[in-house]
């Protein structure tokens, strides 16, 4: 029987086995912490930073990603403080300006209340969430693709851009990619998401921070949504 620890997230007391991440603990308890690179069954990497939270110790507050944060006895976490909400919005805004044509990112934007971007829009196909790499490495144990390069030039690639023999052709990399979820057909607004997504923002404002298996979860393949057994893209 594993050791259990008790933590507090947004005022709610949660008991989880030692070693559980704060994000998993919160999601299981029904608190929605939006996330993108998180995926059940693989190691968290803390790359997207959407799931950031504040850890409160006395008057010291430290912002860190909840997916890589191990729950420790007595930890106090705030996932929806003003600072966290501002940071999360800004991070998603950066993502939106990189890849506005991704349904996953549009849903994420609606979930955190971002309707437009103050940056010039780009149109990338990949936001380096690493889901494909991790599913290949850890679930299928193929180790056929990975991150190469550094910084701005970091990208997902096959070695020497050739499919290696170790590739099992399982297509899992494509299945878990948030960019392959067909964006909604609504017209994009200048520097922003379309009216249909904007209406989702109103829904979000009404349902607050708890998870009610909202339709947005389907977009960014939220873990809780996946637990529902409905993994298929729209």
């Amino acid at each position, binding site marked *: 029987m594993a050791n259990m620890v008790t933590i507090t997230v947004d005022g709610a007391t949660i008991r989880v086995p030692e070693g559980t991440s704060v994000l998993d603990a919160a999601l299981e308890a029904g608190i929605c912490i939006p996330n993108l690179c998180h995926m059940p069954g693989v190691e968290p990497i803390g790359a997207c930073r959407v799931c950031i939270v504040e850890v409160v110790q006395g008057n010291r507050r430290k912002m860190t990603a909840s997916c890589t944060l191990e729950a420790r006895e007595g930890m106090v976490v705030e996932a929806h403080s003003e600072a966290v909400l501002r940071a999360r919005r800004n991070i998603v805004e950066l993502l939106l300006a990189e890849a506005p044509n991704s349904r996953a990112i549009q849903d994420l934007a609606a979930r955190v209340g971002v309707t437009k971007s103050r940056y010039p829009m780009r149109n990338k196909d990949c936001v380096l969430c690493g889901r494909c790499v991790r599913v290949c490495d850890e679930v299928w144990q193929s180790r056929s693709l990975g991150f190469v390069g550094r910084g701005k030039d970091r990208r997902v690639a096959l070695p020497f851009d050739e499919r*290696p023999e170790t590739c099992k052709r399982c297509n899992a990399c494509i299945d878990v990619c948030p960019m392959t979820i067909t964006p909604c057909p609504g017209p994009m607004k200048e520097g922003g998401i379309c009216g249909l997504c904007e209406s989702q923002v109103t829904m979000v404002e009404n349902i607050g921070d708890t998870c009610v298996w909202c339709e947005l979860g389907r977009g960014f393949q939220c873990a809780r949504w996946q637990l529902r057994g409905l993994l298929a893209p729209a």
Partner: protein
Amino acid sequence: MELEWNRLDEILEGRGGEGFDVIEVLQDIQGSYDYLPEEALRRVSASFGLPLIEVFQLASFYKAFSLEPRGRHLVTACLGTACHVRGGSRFLDEILGQLGVQPGETTEDGAFTVETVNCLGACALAPVVVVDGTYYDHMTPAKLRQLLEAVRAQDLEVVASA
């Protein structure tokens, strides 16, 4: 181009005991072949039992490694802060004008490869340019032009006599 692999076998011998060995092996290959040939990386992957993608990752992450063959002469311009405030970025202009290439590129005739480095630690002598391992201090565009012309002249002689 045929490459001989004896050197590679020597480099690989006895390596693999500690994690860092693979990076050291790549550094030795870079030093010996002046770049990392694809075949060498495949052999390293096989020898260490590491997935090819991991070896490729290492080769592409660290700036010390080059996946393309380098030119006969390496020109490195230092872009450290001290060099920058003393006009270091102008060397890139001069190099572009003289050699027609950007950092990271090699001239078509294979004579020069140009690179930049973010600090050599010789800041009191800024701005610094390194050519074929020799440091040149207090450089100016004029001095650099003369230096490149001298190296090119020497190179043409060597190539002609080969």
